[in-house]
């Protein structure tokens, strides 16, 4: 049975960052889809479709916080990792408070992101196991 690649979704209004992260995460054997807005992400990806979300905080329209709220409110268990180019002192704490897996300040190490993604999927598997 061919091992399926883990799916990663990236939502960031900066196209440059989207493209670069896609290239990087692909070298880690992830299957990556990118979106420039939360709305285009929600339009394309059903909430029960598994896959970790790498979510930029500062975006026009629905920002990162609002997006995470919508995900939570929908009952989705999708793990979210926040990223940001802005320096907010309490962003990391706030991220954890709203149920995110973690927060990374741009520019960040690729390995740091991958570590968080792996933590996210382990958590999810644990949750799934508990549900069984």
């Amino acid at each position: 049975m061919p091992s399926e690649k883990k799916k990663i979704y990236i939502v960031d209004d900066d196209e440059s960052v989207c493209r670069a992260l896609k290239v990087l995460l692909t070298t880690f054997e992830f299957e990556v889809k990118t979106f420039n807005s939360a709305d285009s992400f929600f339009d394309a990806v059903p909430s029960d479709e598994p896959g970790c979300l790498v979510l930029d905080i500062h975006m026009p329209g629905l920002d990162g916080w609002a997006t995470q709220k919508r995900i939570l409110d929908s009952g989705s268990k999708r793990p979210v990792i926040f990223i940001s180019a802005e320096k907010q002192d309490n962003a990391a704490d706030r991220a954890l408070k709203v149920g995110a897996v973690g927060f990374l300040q741009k520019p960040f190490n690729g390995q740091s992101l991958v570590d968080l993604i792996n933590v996210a999927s382990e958590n999810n598997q644990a949750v799934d196991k508990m549900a069984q």
Partner: protein
Amino acid sequence: MKKLKKKTTEFNHPRVLKKPLLKKITRNNLEKKIRQQTDGLRIRNTQLRQGADREKLADLKIEEQREELLHVTRVGKLAEFVSSLAHEISQPLAAILSYAQAAQRMYAGREPQLQEILQYIINDNQRATEVIRRLRSLLKKNKPTFEPLDINDLIKDTVALIMTHITVRNKVIKFELAANLPLIQGDRIQLQQVLLNLISNSLEAMEDSSDSRELLIRTSRKDADTIMVEVRDSGCGIPEENMKKLFKHFFTSKPDGLGMGLSISRSIVEAHGGCLEAKNNSGSGATFYFTIPVNMRNGNE
């Protein structure tokens, strides 16, 4: 239809005078009137001129205030601008880092020269990131985080940081650091900022003279509760008219200066519970001196 009245000519007027006399009187009257009116005009002219001068002065004052307001706005806007700049630059920096790391993985174990280049890219990206970080922290109004500090050690460490600056300018630092000073409560980084600011100003003041080379840093116990730090140079001194404005925002005697150093230094010292002052030396040069309260929690010594 209206009946037109017939004009009374001077010939019909009852008080008409003989022609030559009339001419003389009329001419005198006219000349008198002209003189009066000319005098009146002269006075009016002077008043107008004075008014115009006052207006010019008022305009100049408005212009000055406008310039200052613009400057303040510019600096305020500057903070905003730098903040959004930092945000904007972080995006391509993030992308570059990701690309370089992706390429490293793609050629893992191969192409050592390429690997080396990729690492250089990553390192320089780090440098740029660090600049952004420093820019951002500059903008923040930092509340000091206090810890017990040895002021003499702090001074020596700070000077060590810029020793090359000093020797390259062919200047010499002399220390007169009192022994057995009690610890102070201070924010290490912020106090270093103050010291660097004062030392750098002193070095600049001594730039033009080759015979004033010595910069003196002295610490002493002013009283039971206070430590005094003095930075003394033998440079060009402070012109009397600048003394009052020295610590004000945007005051600078340097053509390209921002004028923030001393005002920031003073706010830092004040946030520590001390005072920063300046005075001209009796000889040449100036001394900048500040006080810092002793760390009470440690008691005396």
